[in-house]
């Protein structure tokens, strides 16, 4: 089996690859994932936006999405991990985040490429996503040197805290928008 295929389903191979490759490749992968996420919703955006706009957003803001998520999530993971006695460094967690989700990136690529979807594409999509999640969970447990139970707790706590931070960020921006708008819009709308 070619070594690259083993990256899809063998967490140990992923750990080795992440340690072997430079951190620049992890940066590149995260940027690519961000672009693929936006590209996956691109077809639905084309109903309202031109292809030029969708392309520009994918190219400019896709990498940014990847950078933000890949910067925040490993940091949260490290914070929770340290509280639970973990041994992983930020650099290790960052690289693992990029390489573990390679199957998920491939799933997004398939979703973008194949607009005519037979039953094979959604099944492959689902399996690849599962592989990515499994790779990541397994590598976190191994790198943090956790037991399975402690590892599961760390992963769940990280996920919850990440979404809490995301919700707080969205809430802050929404509040700033509302305060900044003043009473003009609601007053016009509620006019008898």
């Amino acid at each position: 089996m070619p070594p690259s295929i083993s990256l899809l389903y063998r967490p140990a191979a992923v750990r080795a690859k992440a340690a072997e490759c430079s951190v620049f490749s992890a940066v590149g992968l995260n940027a690519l994932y961000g672009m693929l996420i936006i590209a996956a919703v691109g077809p639905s955006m084309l109903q309202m936006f031109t292809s030029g706009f969708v392309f520009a957003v994918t190219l400019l803001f896709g990498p940014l999405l990847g950078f933000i998520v890949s910067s925040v999530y490993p940091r949260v993971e490290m914070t929770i991990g340290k509280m639970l006695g973990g041994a992983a460094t930020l650099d290790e967690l960052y690289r693992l985040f990029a390489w573990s989700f390679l199957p998920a990136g491939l799933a997004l690529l398939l979703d973008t490429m194949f607009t005519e979807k037979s039953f094979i594409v959604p099944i492959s999509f689902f399996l690849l996503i599962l592989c990515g999640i499994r790779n990541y969970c397994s590598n976190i447990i191994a790198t943090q040197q956790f037991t399975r139970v402690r590892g599961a707790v760390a992963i769940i706590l990280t996920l919850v805290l990440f979404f809490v931070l995301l919700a707080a960020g969205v809430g802050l921006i929404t509040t700033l928008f509302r305060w900044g708008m003043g009473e003009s819009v609601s007053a016009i709308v509620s006019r008898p």
Partner: protein
Amino acid sequence: MTIKRLKYAIIFFYLALFVFLGLYDERLNPELAHELAKPRPKVVEPGNAWLAMLGIDAPAGTSSVAAGEKQIRDLDRAIRGGKSTAEIISASFNDKNRLALKGKLPSFYGKENTGILAYVTTHPDETATLCRDNADLLDRYEQLLSLARYAEPLAYGDYAPVPRFASTNQAQELKMLRIAVQAYHGGTTAALTELQRDMNYWRFVASSSATLIPKFIAFRALSFDLRVAAEIAVSGALSKREQMLIQEILKPFDKGENSVAGVLRREALYDHYGLELTTWNTLKPWSPARLIFKHNATSNRLYAYFDEVARLAELPPQRYAEEQKQKAMKKIGLAALYNSMGEILAQIAIPQCFAYIEKGHNIEGLRRLALLKVMAHAENIAPERMQAFIDAHAADLGNPYTGKPMTWDPKARRISFPKLSEDGSVELYL
């Protein structure tokens, strides 16, 4: 390059990108700037029919023009005094002791083919009661018809009060009842003279309207006039003078009267003024909305969209019908990178333009139906010869969208043509 340098380079790139996108705004379209620089007609001037419509349901004992004038002055004072939006809106809103219609007006010319002449013939007491109980409203409507100026307060944008056109519509119906009574009692010449006066007023409002709503109110009123004229014209033999009056009432609309192109362009100015007063001047300086909601870019887009629709509205109905089929929905482009809120607002602010453009063509079609009805009666066209008669008039009085003859339904004794974008048809019973 070290990872640290790459990190700083990425941060710097995105900071520079966001600063550029956040601060960049387009130059205002020179055509739009030229339109905005034109002096707006004064609203508070003697004889402004729009003011009279604004105050048509003012409390009994007050002048409708004076009431409308007061509302505008109160609004102006509130805006200049820097009041809050809620205070500004309530300054121009007067809900106290409004003059309401007494009784219930029947509905005419619907699916049941209930004509107004038929109603006054069979319901003389109800007609007299309605006219007597609503004498104030009728008097105000008569005063309205005598006014020779029309100017809407475009510069107030969304703050401008909207007249309660329902009262104006009800007043017109009362007037039509009076005209029908006149015609029924043999005063056809006087009735048609009054009808022509009403028609001329609403043609004047249609051609002078600055925004869509008053234009459509004018179309509704004109539609009523056309149907009443056709009904009176076929109720008996007409004298030469009466025939001339009918021809004058049913004369073709000029472009200013039934085209919505002008009001569509002015709607862009109305939206611009509205944004100026309600949003640009009230958005806090630090608001994140300023980064994605740009003044000039939004105004430019609104103006461009309305202008494009206005060009479509200027086409003759048959060419419009062909072009309308090919029109694809406009998509939002690269400008959304620096003006996402404005681009989406401009997209959704454009009204259901096809249906609005077609209102103008439909009123022309109704005029043709009315003329066909009158001519068929004058020439004593029997029902079995009606189709041939309609076919012979396809060129001048045919379906405005296709140029083909109108549709004749011998069972229902009805001529009609199908609407273009909406369901249903414009119909007239013989």
